[in-house]
């Protein structure tokens, strides 16, 4: 996801410092450039970033701030993963005064990146919870950080949520305590990546699809098929750009769903050994057509702009950035369907500040904050009321309200041994095997 790219720039900065002889100007350059660039494309950041007065509008969401029970929460979440319903709190106490969260870069802005982009400060003023944000660079890093038990919550993507739920790192969430949850698009609620056995494990933050980007000169006829990435690249052969993560195996599975129907893949995240091997085979063949495996989103952007990459898997935000720099590219969601992501704010099972975390979950999906994040970050907001607050055309660009658009988007989900498509006669390949296979494929 592109959030990790943003953070990737920061990570790269650290690396630079570690790699001896790093110079300050280089590091600050690499970390701030992408952020401000995003701001430009999303447009009107200053108008959308929730200033104090707009956000305090969510004060009409009183449960959180007016609850007058004792300081200590009524939450007993310790071992809730086994019996989901048991650990769910039924009412909230006062805020604990502090909150430690793990977030994708750009998900919890407090004005330090851009003074106009700030939805953390209003929250702190309103609730008295002072927020400490730890930026997670990748899903895997977030899982690692949550396993330390030192954080109250996380903005987890679907390739992390299942591991967090199954590993007992996060607690079930009582959505009744989160008034803004009612306004979240129904298409995002109670999904495999944010719930278990009918129990919600968090609140949806926003979503996006992984698109097929192509050079408009190399493809005078706009392509609409995922085949471009797997064998039918045409002029783009040898100039493909692929997302560098085990989760990309699902893209190959989507290709197989249409190209080899006899494999009977019904869900790209539920692959038995035979289907999985077929996907890996496809990826091995693809390798010779690939010129770039990207994980830092600016890397792909640069390659698209220079024309060294002529097609690839991309995110809407990259397309916007590159087009703003006059790159001759366009993007499309392939007709076979596409992978995508839907992020979820989750609360740690060892949260020391659960009340503040509940207040945060309510705040971050409030129309004001949600609209501000979506525009700053470049994704479709999760709150139906957010679109009224975004720049004109934004929600159309990101298909926020277009339910049909999302019908064939397979949001990132962690593969488990129990097949996600409901099959019980076979075992599916778990995500840990995906990691190993991807590592070997890339090595």
């Amino acid at each position: 996801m592109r959030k990790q790219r943003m953070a990737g720039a920061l990570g790269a900065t650290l690396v630079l410092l570690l790699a001896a002889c790093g110079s300050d100007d280089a590091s600050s350059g690499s970390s701030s450039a992408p952020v401000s660039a995003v701001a430009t494309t999303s447009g009107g950041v200053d108008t959308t970033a929730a200033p104090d007065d707009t956000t305090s509008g969510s004060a009409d969401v009183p449960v959180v701030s007016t609850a007058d029970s004792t300081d200590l929460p009524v939450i007993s979440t310790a071992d809730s993963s086994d019996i989901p319903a048991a650990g769910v709190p039924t009412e909230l106490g006062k805020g604990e005064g502090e909150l430690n969260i793990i977030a994708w870069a750009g998900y919890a802005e407090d004005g330090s990146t851009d003074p106009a982009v700030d939805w953390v400060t209003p929250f702190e003023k309103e609730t008295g919870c002072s927020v400490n944000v730890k930026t997670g660079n990748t899903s895997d890093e977030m899982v690692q950080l949550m396993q330390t038990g030192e954080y109250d919550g996380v903005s987890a993507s679907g390739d992390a949520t299942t591991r967090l739920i199954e590993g007992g790192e996060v607690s079930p969430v009582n959505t009744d305590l989160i008034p803004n949850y009612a306004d979240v698009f129904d298409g995002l609620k109670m999904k495999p990546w944010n719930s278990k056995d009918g129990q919600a494990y968090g609140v949806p933050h926003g979503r996006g699809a992984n698109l097929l980007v192509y050079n408009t000169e190399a493809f005078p006829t706009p392509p609409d098929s995922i085949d471009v990435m797997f064998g039918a690249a045409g002029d783009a052969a040898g100039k493909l750009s692929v997302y560098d993560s085990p989760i990309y195996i699902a893209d190959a599975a989507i290709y197989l769903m249409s190209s080899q129907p006899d494999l009977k893949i019904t869900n790209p995240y539920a692959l038995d050994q035979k289907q999985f091997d077929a996907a890996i085979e496809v990826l091995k063949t693809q390798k010779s057509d690939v010129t770039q495996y990207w994980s830092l989103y600016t890397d792909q952007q640069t390659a698209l702009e220079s024309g060294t990459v002529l097609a690839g898997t991309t995110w809407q935000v990259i397309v916007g950035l590159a087009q703003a720099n006059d790159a001759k590219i366009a993007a499309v969601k392939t007709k076979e369907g596409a992978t995508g992501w839907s992020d979820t704010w989750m609360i740690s099972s060892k949260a020391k500040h659960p009340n503040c975390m509940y207040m945060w979950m309510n705040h971050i999906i409030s129309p004001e904050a949600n609209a501000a994040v979506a525009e700053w970050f470049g994704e479709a907001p999760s709150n139906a009321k957010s679109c009224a607050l975004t720049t004109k055309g934004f929600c159309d660009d990101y298909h926020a309200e277009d339910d049909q658009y999302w019908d064939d988007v397979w949001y990132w989900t962690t593969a488990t041994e129990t097949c996600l498509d409901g099959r019980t006669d076979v075992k599916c390949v778990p995500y840990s095997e995906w990691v190993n296979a991807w590592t070997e494929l890339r090595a």
Partner: protein
Amino acid sequence: MTMVAVGDRSAPARVSRFLRRHRRFSLFVTLGGPVTWMMLVYVGSLLVLVAAAFFKVDSNSKVTTDFTTQNVVDAFTTGSFIQTVIRSVLIALAVTVLCLAIALPMAFYIAKIAKPRYRRGLIVAVLLPLWAGYLVKGYAWKSIFTPDAGKFAARKGGGFLEATIGWTPGFGKVAIVITLAYLWLPYMVLPIYAGLERLPPSYLDAAGDLGARPFRTFRSVIMPILIPSIAAGSIFTFSLSLGDYITPRIISGAKVQMIGNLIDQLQQQNQALSAALTLWPIAIIIVYLLGMSRLHAFENV
């Protein structure tokens, strides 16, 4: 240094007397800190790293405390890992050879041919690139290597190499070797320069007087004296190249993977396997250091 008078009762004098009488204690005071730091922070973390290779990682990518040798077995038997290790070693060796080929004449010129008053300036010039950011240099080389992207290129003609000499190694292993050689060159030039500084000019004169041609002088007089310096420089270039993972990522778009890329990628996805893979570079570097110490790399550097 003034001796402390026996009858002096001031506090510093008493401390001084105490330390003089208790040699072991004063040794402990001076060396204790650094040695403890070395043992705990350096050796200790290395041991923890090795130990981490034997933990089992469950299906939620959580490191458990169960013991397993599977990670180490995987790290040392998986064909694609071994290929990556071989690739990394070859790249590191190529970088070392390239650095040596460039550094020898450079250092010789600075130490023996250039006028003494220019020497300091030339050394500064060699060191100057170290002041620039690593990433900046990486991306700069990438732009230099950019091939002509063909008819769909936004900017025709490719990067500097393509535009000037009409050839570029592209974004493959050759490009990585050149970039790494550029990055670590100063670490090769400096020890060789120091070695040449110590070479008495009279040796060269003597060789000349005895009728040796330049190459013979180089082979029989200069090289034997320089071997330890070269070995020392090669330790820098070899080990820095072997562990590098940023340059392959920047230059090759992560297509060419080195051992560091594997470790980097896995340390979040499968920490134990990642730890097991670090045994590769540790083993390789130990072997390399042993080899270099036979060449007296650790003496008179």
